[in-house]
């Protein structure tokens, strides 16, 4: 008994068991069970069938929702990239103290519930909100602009919550750039413009790549922001999945939507990876 207790393998197993039970019982098994429900009749008990998936692709309604989810996620990636890149560049050349401050300011809102952040956006973008009130009191507009409960509202909300991933991914790759490269380029007469395109941009590609895939996958699966800032008119896959599960109680369709969401996200990220890689290989071989 004593030697058993002292055996390393036994202790390690003992320490790992609680964690593995949680992962298997609350995640791995449920995922397999959900797959069964999406693929078999009578809640995973009956005959094998692809009816739930066929249902999703037969109806243009569902295909439209899938396309809208992808499109809004792509818009979000673009906004995060355009706004996040300058921030990452600024952080890369700032003093460590400034860098720490920006990191803190950009991460800490992320630790407060997305419901509350979206509520803040409702106050800013609503008909009586900050932007409309300011513009109307300045007589720039006579009627409030519609900034909320449409696709614009969803993209604003998603960009706000996901830009942190883009900034951190790009800035991490820029921190690694040797600053003497800029000095050398400057001595050799390269303009700022030239330096950006031949040093900063190529060396930040891994960061851009990581940030893009991260923001895209997180945008594809967000539920709260489309529900609160898109209203009923902007339905995306996660909202559809929720409705099928909780309102229509069509669980086999809900399970199929979950896998459609997972599959389309993984598929598009893989496609993007392949495209980027083949392009990189071509560059290597042509030069």
């Amino acid at each position, binding site marked *: 008994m004593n030697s058993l207790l002292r055996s390393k393998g036994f202790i390690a197993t003992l320490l790992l068991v609680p964690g593995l039970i949680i992962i298997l019982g609350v995640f791995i098994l449920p995922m397999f*069970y959900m797959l069964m429900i999406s693929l078999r009749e009578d809640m995973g008990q009956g005959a094998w069938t692809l009816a739930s998936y066929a249902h999703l692709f037969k109806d243009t309604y569902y295909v439209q929702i899938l396309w809208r989810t992808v499109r809004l996620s792509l818009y979000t990636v673009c906004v995060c990239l355009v706004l996040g890149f300058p921030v990452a560049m600024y952080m890369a050349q700032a003093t460590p103290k400034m860098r720490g401050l920006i990191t803190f300011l950009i991460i800490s809102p992320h630790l407060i519930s997305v*419901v509350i952040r979206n509520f803040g956006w409702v106050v800013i973008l609503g008909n009586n909100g900050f932007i409309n009130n300011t513009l109307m009191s300045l007589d720039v507009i006579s009627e409030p602009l519609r900034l909320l409960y449409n696709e614009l509202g969803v993209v604003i909300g998603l960009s*706000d919550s996901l830009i942190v991933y883009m900034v951190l991914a790009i800035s991490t790759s820029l921190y690694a750039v040797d600053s003497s490269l800029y000095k050398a380029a400057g001595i050799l007469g390269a303009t700022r413009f030239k330096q950006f395109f031949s040093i900063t941009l190529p060396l930040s590609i891994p960061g851009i790549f990581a940030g893009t895939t991260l923001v895209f996958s997180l945008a594809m699966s967000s539920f709260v922001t489309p529900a609160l800032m898109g209203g009923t008119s902007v339905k995306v896959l996660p909202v559809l999945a929720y409705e099928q599960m909780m309102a229509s109680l069509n669980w086999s369709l809900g399970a199929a939507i979950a896998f459609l969401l997972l599959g389309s996200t993984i598929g598009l990220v893989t496609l993007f990876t392949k495209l980027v890689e083949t392009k990189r290989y071509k560059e290597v071989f042509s030069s």
Partner: protein
Amino acid sequence: MIREKKSRRPSVLGIITFFVVLMVISPLLIIIPTSFTSTGVLRFPPQGFSLQWYEKIFDRPEFIESFGFSLQLAIITAVIATVIGTLAALALHKYKPRGSGVISSLLLSPLTVPALIIGIAALLFFTRIGLAGTFLGLLLSHILISVPYVVRLVYTGLSTFDYTLERAASILGANPLRTFWDVTFPLIRPAVLSGCVFAFLTSFDNVTVSLFMISPSTTTLPMAIFNYMQESLTPLVASISSIVILLSLVFIFILERVYGLDRLFGSNSHAH
């Protein structure tokens, strides 16, 4: 000439950075003044000053109850997830068991799947085994999404740990438990504490998993706010949110002091 250009470049980037940081924090900053409005309309800038929307929280028992419930749930989740995650990280780092690569990716696997999908799968499975809508089901799902963060943080914390200290303690006659409490634990405490606070916030903020796990008697605060917001938008949401923001700030400052938010996020962003 070059020097002049150098000082000019950060300023353009600096302005953009300033506006992006403003964009990220303004939704939270704007809520607090809004909560003191004296009118019933949600507008900014707010009109008048009153505490009426704070008093009105007490007229809505569902917010008080769900606030207490969320706190309880988050504390229990944080404690259990921290114990489970710390034990697993110790086992992986110290004993390096066979197949530890597979085991660690298994332990981190919930981070690779969207929370919404985890919630749907858990609802289906829990319905089958009779846990759907129970407190235990909700708790288990919150523990699941918190454990990977704890494992990651504690594992990273252990990377600087010197195991000769443990050997020294055992040579001097300390038993394994005593060695853990007196030598190992004090040295990894910052990582464990950060894991605990992060687990607390993960549970306290969660909507996407709770969505499928709650029942009328087990509604969390974010879910109560979410449901209320879908029906009506009043300054009441602002006053409740202000309280949550202030409470969260306390925990965020603890995290920043003990561990550093940049390190915390650096390790998370790779996991998604």
